[in-house]
């Protein structure tokens, strides 16, 4: 949580002024009982109407000053808290964006979303409350005690005993409830997970008539949540009654002591009233403090969870020394320059990959080299590691053994951004974002002209349907591209990668929703494309369709994470059993 406080640094002024004005207000509030005591002892005792009126004006004046200070304080506190939250959200979002896939796989998307939304809100609340009240309440508590001392030392000793006693209770309950709030949050996360799941799976759940079961499932988690909430509630409900007993018990003692002191002529009747008033003020403030502490508890728990996200280090970052070293560093390395024209575009040497948390290698000893301009087909069974292979090229994951080279240079030595600019990836899952088609296309190149976009759409065989859409490039895509068919989505994601004009294009089983005719036309169009430097694109086609990769320059056949054959179609038909089997499974009928 401490680490999060840096987000207040732009609001130093507000964070100091807010509490300060609150303290000013509180100071004025502390004077009120003294004024009242004066009214009783001087005004009433001497029957001095003028004096009473004068003191009354003092009270009004104190109120006006209090109001001004307080509003000022609220403004500064709100500004600081809201600014803090905005800064925190910004940093958190930026941080999450940097996380690599391994971390994303482990943490889970929905957790990250909760952290960014409700947790940040809770922290914002906490900051706001702390700025407004955290100093004020203890200040009044101790202020009241000090004022009591100015009246009568002996009576004030009661305050000295009462305050620590109250603190023990307030803080004791606080420490009891902190771990419980964590439980509440976990239970809430579970409920959230089920809700999400039921939205994403609504079709399947209905198809299997599982609604009732899901409701029962939800009910169970919901009940658990309620139980934990009730338990925590019970404990924090102790706070008010206990503090009430102590403060009023203190008042009883105070009245008795006061009586003794008055009897002996040390203090006046009005001063006893003032002492009782101060004790009551302490109660009011402690109740506030107690509520405040509960809220701070919640906020701290949320803050700590957020801090843990910040502690996650992206596992894939630019190599150390990148950008410092004059030659390979920034500036000196124009993004698309080629290190050595003779080097292979992509080279794998004895690459192995173990996913985080997995015991076995998902890829073993992958070894091949793709020359610039070649089309490489990658084929193999489900789970054979096809996607894993291509995921290593733009460094979505890091190889655990061996070296992956792009343009003759280890990918770990490339600046990440430059590497990813060279590569255009069309992922298996066709993801589009809310916005117009044009906006989606410009992901590849923010400056792409409409002509360039249309050209890419044409290559991706998407031109026709985009033109048919209302507004063409201005057609609005809904979240996740729900208002498009699977095939349309796929073609748009391909076009998006093409807008980028990458040197290396990776199609990760990205034509699966396309019919064969479109698929064939697509491949033809892609082969005729050239990269900006005039060279041919190096294309990786991952597919389960033999027809999609049949004409590739090299076909890599994978089985269970190993290469079982590399070569052209004809060669593989001769030598590779797995390939022949795959091919036959798709084409046998026609032969």
């Amino acid at each position, binding site marked *: 949580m401490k680490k999060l406080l840096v987000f207040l640094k732009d609001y130093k002024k507000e964070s100091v002024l807010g509490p300060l004005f609150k303290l000013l207000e509180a100071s004025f509030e502390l004077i009120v009982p003294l004024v009242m005591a004066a009214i009783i002892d001087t005004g009433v005792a001497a029957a001095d109407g003028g004096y009473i009126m004068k003191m009354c004006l003092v009270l009004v004046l104190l109120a006006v000053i209090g109001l001004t200070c307080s509003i000022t304080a609220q403004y500064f506190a709100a500004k600081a808290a809201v600014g803090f939250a905005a800064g925190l959200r910004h940093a958190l*979002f930026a941080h999450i964006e940097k996380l690599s896939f391994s971390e994303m796989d482990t943490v889970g998307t929905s957790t990250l979303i909760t952290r960014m939304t409700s947790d940040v809100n809770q922290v914002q609340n906490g900051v706001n409350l702390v700025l407004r009240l955290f100093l004020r309440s203890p200040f009044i508590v101790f202020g009241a005690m000090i004022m009591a001392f100015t009246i009568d030392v002996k009576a004030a000793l009661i305050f000295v005993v009462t305050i620590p006693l109250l603190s023990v209770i307030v803080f004791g309950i606080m420490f009891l409830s902190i771990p419980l709030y964590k439980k509440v949050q976990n239970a809430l996360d579970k409920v959230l997970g089920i809700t999400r799941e039921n939205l994403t799976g609504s079709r399947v759940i209905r198809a299997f008539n599982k609604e009732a079961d899901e409701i029962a499932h939800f009910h169970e988690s919901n009940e658990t949540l309620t139980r934990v909430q009730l338990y925590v509630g019970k404990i924090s409900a102790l706070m008010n009654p206990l503090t009430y007993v102590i403060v009023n018990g203190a008042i009883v003692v105070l009245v008795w002591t006061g009586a003794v002191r008055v009897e002996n002529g040390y203090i006046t009747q009005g001063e006893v009233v003032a002492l009782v008033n101060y004790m009551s003020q302490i109660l009011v403030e402690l109740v506030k403090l107690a509520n405040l502490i509960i809220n701070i508890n919640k906020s701290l728990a949320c803050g700590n969870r957020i801090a843990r996200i910040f502690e996650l280090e992206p596992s894939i970052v630019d190599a150390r020394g990148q950008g410092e070293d004059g030659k390979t560093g920034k500036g000196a390395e124009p993004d698309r320059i080629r290190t050595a024209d003779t080097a292979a575009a992509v080279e794998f040497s004895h690459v192995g990959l173990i996913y985080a948390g997995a015991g076995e290698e998902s890829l073993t000893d992958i070894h091949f080299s793709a020359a610039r301009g070649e089309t490489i087909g990658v084929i193999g069974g489900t789970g054979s590691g096809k996607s894993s292979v291509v995921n290593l090229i733009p460094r979505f994951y890091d190889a655990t053994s061996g070296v992956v080279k792009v343009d003759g240079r280890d990918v770990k030595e490339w600046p990440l951004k430059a590497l990813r600019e060279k590569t255009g990836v069309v992922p298996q899952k066709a993801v589009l974002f809310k916005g117009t088609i044009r906006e989606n296309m410009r992901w590849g190149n923010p400056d792409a002209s409409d002509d360039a976009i249309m050209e890419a759409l044409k290559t991706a065989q998407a031109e026709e349907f985009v033109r048919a859409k209302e507004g063409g490039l201005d057609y609005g895509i809904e979240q996740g591209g729900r208002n498009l068919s699977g095939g349309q989505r796929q073609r748009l994601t391909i076009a998006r990668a093409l807008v980028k004009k990458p040197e290396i294009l990776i199609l990760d089983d990205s034509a699966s929703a396309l019919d064969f005719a479109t698929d*064939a036309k697509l491949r033809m169009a892609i082969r005729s494309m050239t990269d900006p430097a005039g060279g041919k694109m190096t294309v990786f086609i991952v597919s389960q369709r033999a027809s999609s990769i049949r004409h590739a320059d090299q076909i890599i056949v994978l089985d269970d994470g190993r290469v079982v054959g590399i070569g052209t179609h004809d060669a593989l038909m001769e030598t590779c059993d797995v390939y022949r089997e795959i091919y036959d499974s798709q084409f046998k009928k026609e032969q």
Partner: protein
Amino acid sequence: MSKKVSGQQKATLGKVLRYIRRYWFYLGLSVVLAAVTVALTLYLPILIGQAVDKIAGAGQVDFRGILVILQKMAVMIVLTAAAQWIMNACNNKITYNVIRDIRREAFEKIERLPLKYIDAHSYGEIVSRVIADVDQFADGLLMGFTQFFTGIVTIFGTLLFMLAISVKITAAVVIITPVSLFVASFIAQRTFSMFKLQSETRGEQTAFIEEMVGNQKVVQAFSHEDEALEQFDEINGRLQKYSLRAIFFSSITNPATRFVNSLVYATVGVVGAFSAIAGGISVGQLSSLLSYANQYTKPFNEISGVITELQNALACAARVFELMEEEAEAMDVPGAQILKEADGRVELEHVCFSYAPGVKLIEDFHLAVKPGQRVAIVGPTGCGKTTLINLLMRFYDVNSGEIRVSGIPMRELTRKSLRSNYGMVLQETWLRSGTIRDNITMGKEDATDEEVVAAAKASHAHSFIKRLPDGYDTVIAEDGGNLSQGQKQLLCIARVMLCLPPMLILDEATSSIDTRTEMRIQKAFARMMEGRTSFIVAHRLSTIQEADVILVMKDGSVIEQGNHEELLAKNGFYADLYQSQFVQA
């Protein structure tokens, strides 16, 4: 404007009350205890006042009298604390049960919402209504109970006690009261719309986060981080602006009402002091009045604070209720039949359907499927294949025309029985969090281990399941976790293989599975489809050429129909499609 807003608030409040009513016992108890607590709390200053009066000055203290009063006080303090504690417990109980009920009903609603609604709303937005909004609402409700209610009782109680001491002073206090109320309601009305704006912007931001974080891979592949951050900052900036307004304006309430309180206090002080001089009241009574002035005004203070919180809570509740009041899937017609075991006949007559009015999709569609027939649907992407499945499963209702299953119009069947007659495997695989076994047995919960393994073997999922750390008991995370797309699809197939309903829908069921495995699954599929009416959507023509009827769809209508050979002989669209897979690329 403000009237409209408060009308909406009232309606929401009414709905909330309906939920609270279920816990009337606790509510009643809470009310009684609140009254007891307040009465005891209020009696205390009178006792203190009496005690103070017995401390007139040096040498004039009545110790015996004081002792009696102090004893009384001690008993009351303990009683008050006990009542307060039980009351708090009741309030907790009501609040957490009410929000449990609301969450539950909201969730039940989700299960009954038409897919049209779910398809058209972002998941993040719906989730935020059920979780974040309900949570916020709970906070408000709890505060409402603990402070709003006792606050009101305190106000009236104090007035009564004050009246008992001095009518004049009470009158002075009552005159100032409306000012406080006016200030509070003035601010509350203005902040409601600000809270709503804040809440909407939050929803927008949540949706954006979900989109970007959920698809991080694409974001990173395109080095789109900076742009995404920029967009995020735009929303974030707006949220900051709205939040500042909402928070600041709502937090003015507190100081403003406190100011009014100070005025009340000063008034009581002055009027009381003059009465004391005139001999109307004693100093002790003045001190009681002063502490009443504090107690009387404190609830106003709290109430106005609570009101702003309640505003926020109501705004959140309104969003939840909005979801809960969405029109649910049309109920089954009265007397709807239960389709026991479909004979496999499916007829579509004059079916028209479109997702959005004005955008035509399927028009005047006819199809008659005989029992046991295999119907393959092919066509270019976006031609309406998946839409047809949506209609067959009754995820969407036809706009006009009729679909009959086993000769019975679909509208006259219960949805449940209709759907249970279909086994469905979709391209978009979905697994629920739970074990592998849970997922496979979705359609048949009482399946034995042997049956589960047999189904998994038939779908060729067994071998990879075996390799997982805990085999069939491996818990898979939300959305399938670390399984590959193909593995997920195999599980979805196993799911159907296990329950084997009389009709099948395979919508790109094997699109993510390699062809070698697919070929083996095909055999199992073939066995499965024997005697079962099946609808198969596929791109791989190899998977569909054995179908009895192939529907070639284009732009929402069937342009060719027949079996593989007939269609090839026609040399039309299908033939083109078929030949294209051998095109040299």
